[in-house]
């Protein structure tokens, strides 16, 4: 307990002024364990009598399973073998739909789909055993691209109607798009594509499962969403909630890649544990993780835009298509976010958006930082660049003329009631990046250099929290518990995987209770201990869960003051003494709060209209690039970011989120290419799936404007996903500035630049290589 001076818990509603703990660079809560190498990740843990599990996977993208052969050269008596026939409950992984089998039974719908599970005490013997299981198939025609799926000639998912192969579609109309074309000074069209992207958390997916008839199933794992896994396990094992327990252990990166997939691997380990009667660990190696787990949705976005002679948007017609892979997973909600971010942060009176998520026979696409927004923001921000060129005005100016402002409405008729300061963000970004002078300098120097330099802008927004009615459905619960002793415990299912959950929620609790940072601890997420505060996704933890903790703190202080005479001002000792009195008189000292939607937030799921998000984070990013016309490599040489994310709760952690997101965005733009052969990722190694290294990341400058959002914790909005949205379009805009080439697809690799420049140099025999 700290010997704190007398403090008083601050009082809302304007609690963001004059905070003591919030807004300060408190050290990462679990940081000491991490720098000492003492933090225990899943592969660092053992259970008594534990065996290891492995997975036999499909080698074709689509086909009927005929027979499973076990090579007699292996002594199979030493192994535990699980197939779909061993599943006690439902053979599906329940996310949004129940279409993904836990283990393929009769048919496979993508490469690397799990069919058979093996367990053995010696994990070194497993690879050979996996290779000794041969599966005979009757192959079926596979659909491997959005375009192939769109033909609907082969129906791989859904009914044989015009909805074949479509996981989800949205159609959104605002104003009268058809009438606008005739009035346009320019009509600008473009098609933009983004590739799959691997999360490449440095720790692969892994779990340990234990099963007993008495207590049910317990899973420890590297995961983001304990209650998602909990729900899946209940269905697979047909167990009641109290017989399923999921515990998150230290998690070595996630980025969305441990949102849905842990439900799969946890079910697998659980099935082996049940049959083996002993704990089972499954930790994927890198090749398996890359080949078999989710990726970012590939996308194709088409824009047709009417603008007036000054570059003002008159009408936008947008068509978004995503590749969802073989099963629904989260494709419908990813598509929703892609749809809602597809207009960019611009105002336009007439908008038509059609979006579809298509099924293909590839590994299911899943959640990845940004969740559809990076795809559609890439498209609109590249497209705005083409509009600027068509109209003949500067890239910054075309954006300025079309920015959303207070009182404007979005495509869903959401009125901007919170302040929108895009003009100020743009101004600051241009100034800090020295944009105008750089642009002029590069234009002057490029003709005399083999290195072409350029500068590019992206302006964008990211909706904080679940889309539409999502937070209402989640109905999150979180709180604070004070056990005997001198520590407060924060009770949430929100997980730490590097982004800073533990630290910021501790700061918020300490602030609202008038205590110091060290007086507060965060409880390990364990579904048998913590309430369901919702998944740790969607940039919702600071804003939504943080607000619940802030409210829980205030509620507890008020209760202690009303019931056990806690004074208006108090020391930490007096606080804990008051908790002791309360506990003696009335029992558990606990304060729980349930989500309450901000007022005036309405969303119509049927009409897809209303307040899509309670708040938006806003940003303007500026990239500088150098394109080497001899090696054809493009390099980001400098990167400026200016953003408004509400109140910054911890400046060091917040900057770390931006820098990490920008680096991941640079990889998305220039390096990271998932290469499929017949639906199987064949560059499934770190050797040939290339992410940015310490030598590839430029100086990244981070600036925040802070406009507190009254319905987020101490004014916070979302931050985690925002920085992945802007880098790719800013970089390709800069490359266009450098080379005059309009590249429309990412990742943009040196060979792509080579092909384009060779074509420009009119040497077709090389182009055909």
């Amino acid at each position, binding site marked *: 307990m700290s010997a704190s001076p007398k403090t008083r818990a601050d009082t809302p509603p304007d609690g963001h002024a004059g905070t003591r703990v919030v807004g300060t*660079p408190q*050290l*990462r809560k*679990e*940081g*000491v*364990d*991490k*720098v*000492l*190498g*003492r*933090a*225990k*990740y899943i*592969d*660092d843990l053992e259970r008594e009598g534990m065996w290891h599990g492995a997975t036999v996977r499909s080698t074709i993208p689509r086909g009927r399973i005929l027979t499973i052969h076990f090579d007699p050269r292996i002594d199979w008596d030493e192994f535990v073998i699980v197939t779909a026939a061993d599943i006690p409950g439902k053979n599906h992984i329940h996310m949004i739909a129940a279409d993904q089998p836990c283990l393929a039974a009769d048919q496979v719908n993508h490469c690397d789909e799990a069919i058979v599970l093996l367990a053995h005490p010696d994990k070194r013997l497993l690879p050979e055993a996996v290779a000794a299981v041969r599966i005979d198939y009757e192959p079926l025609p596979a659909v491997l691209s959005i375009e192939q799926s769109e033909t609907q000639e082969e129906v791989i998912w859904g009914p044989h109607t015009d909805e074949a192969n479509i996981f989800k579609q949205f159609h959104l109309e605002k104003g009268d798009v058809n009438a606008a074309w005739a009035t346009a000074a320019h009509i600008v069209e473009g098609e933009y594509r983004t590739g799959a992207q691997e*999360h*490449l*958390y*440095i*720790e*692969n997916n892994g779990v340990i499962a234990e099963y007993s008839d008495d207590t049910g199933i317990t899973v420890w794992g590297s995961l983001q969403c304990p209650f998602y896994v909990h729900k899946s396990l209940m269905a697979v094992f047909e167990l009641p909630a109290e017989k399923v327990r999921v515990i998150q252990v*230290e*998690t*070595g*990166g*996630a*980025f969305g890649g441990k949102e849905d997939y842990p439900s799969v691997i946890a079910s697998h380990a659980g099935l082996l544990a049940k049959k083996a009667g002993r704990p089972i660990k499954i930790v994927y*190696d*890198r090749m398996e993780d890359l080949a078999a787990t989710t990726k970012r949705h590939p996308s194709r976005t088409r824009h047709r835009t009417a603008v007036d002679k000054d570059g003002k948007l008159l009408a936008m017609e947008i068509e978004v298509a995503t590749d969802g892979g073989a099963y629904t997973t989260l494709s419908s909600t990813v598509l929703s976010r892609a749809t809602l971010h597809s207009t960019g942060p611009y105002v336009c009176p007439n908008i038509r958006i059609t979006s579809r998520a298509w099924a293909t026979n590839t590994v299911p696409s899943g959640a990845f930082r940004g969740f559809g927004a990076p795809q559609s923001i890439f498209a609109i921000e590249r497209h705005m660049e083409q509009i600027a060129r068509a109209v003949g005005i500067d890239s910054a100016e075309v954006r300025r003329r079309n920015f959303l402002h207070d009182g404007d409405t979005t495509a869903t008729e959401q009125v901007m009631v919170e302040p929108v300061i895009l003009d100020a963000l743009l101004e600051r970004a241009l100034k800090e990046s020295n944009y105008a002078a750089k642009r002029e300098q590069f234009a002057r120097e490029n003709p005399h250099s083999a290195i072409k330099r350029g500068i590019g802008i992206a302006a964008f927004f990211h909706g904080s929290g679940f889309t539409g009615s999502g937070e209402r459905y989640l109905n999150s619960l979180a709180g604070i518990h004070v056990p005997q002793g001198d520590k407060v415990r924060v009770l949430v299912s929100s997980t730490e*995987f*590097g*982004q*800073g959950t533990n630290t910021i929620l501790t700061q918020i609790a300490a602030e609202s209770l008038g205590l110091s940072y060290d007086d507060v601890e965060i409880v390990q997420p364990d579904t048998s201990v913590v309430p369901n505060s919702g998944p740790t996704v969607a940039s919702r933890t600071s804003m939504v869960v943080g607000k619940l903790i802030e409210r829980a703190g205030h509620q507890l202080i008020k209760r202690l003051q009303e019931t056990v005479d806690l004074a208006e001002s108090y020391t930490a000792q007096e606080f804990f003494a008051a908790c002791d009195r309360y506990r003696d008189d009335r029992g558990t000292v606990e304060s729980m709060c349930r989500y309450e939607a901000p007022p005036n937030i309405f969303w119509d799921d049927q009409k897809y209209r209303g307040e899509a998000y309670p708040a938006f984070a806003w940003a303007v990013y500026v990239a500088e690039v150098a394109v080497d016309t001899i090696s054809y490599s493009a390099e980001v040489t400098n990167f400026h970011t200016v953003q408004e994310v509400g109140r910054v709760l911890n400046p*060091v*952690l917040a*900057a*770390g989120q931006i*820098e*990490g*997101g*920008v*680096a*991941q965005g640079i990889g998305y733009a220039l390096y990271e290419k998932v290469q499929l052969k017949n639906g199987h990722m064949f560059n499934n*190694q*770190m*050797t040939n799936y290339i*992410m*940015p*290294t*310490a*030598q590839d*990341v430029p*100086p*990244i400058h981070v600036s925040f404007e802070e406009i507190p959002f009254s319905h987020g914790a101490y004014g916070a909005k979302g931050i985690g996903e925002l920085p992945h949205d802007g880098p790719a379009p800013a970089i390709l805009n800069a490359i266009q500035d450098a080379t005059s080439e309009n590249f429309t697809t990412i990742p943009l690799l040196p060979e792509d630049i080579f092909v384009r420049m060779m074509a420009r140099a009119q040497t077709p025999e090389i182009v055909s290589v």
Partner: protein
Amino acid sequence: MSACSLHIRFTINGQQADVQAPPMKRLLDVLRDDLGLTGTKEGCGEGECGSCSVRMNGELINSCLVPVLQVDGALIETVEGLAIDAELHPLQKAFLECGGAQCGICTPGMLMAATHLLARNPQPSMDEIREGLAGNLCRCTGFVKIFESVVAASAMKGFDLNAR
């Protein structure tokens, strides 16, 4: 397995280690499974990510690429050897304070690479830091705060890495 295993002795963080292991067992596995030193992590198993970085006879190596037979008689340093008693090594302190660790899975390897860099070059330039850490991948930080951590550690007064 015992028929094809060797008795191997080496020094680990200043202490003698005796292990009985198959000669081609990876040093990484010996550290984690035989010696319980789980601070050293596996990220890729092919020497690309650097999460398993340790020092061997003063050189920075990927312990996933070194068979334990090569370690006989060697001096091995891992993340567990950085802190002395409860006192954090200056680099650990700097990583903690500057935000150089996020998810923490690359941190032990990154700390060993940074230790190795500062041991050879106590005042590295930014380019030298980038080069020194180029074999260690971090997916969380974008490296910026890791660079800042190394700069901060190198600026700590009275800090002599070689003396530790």
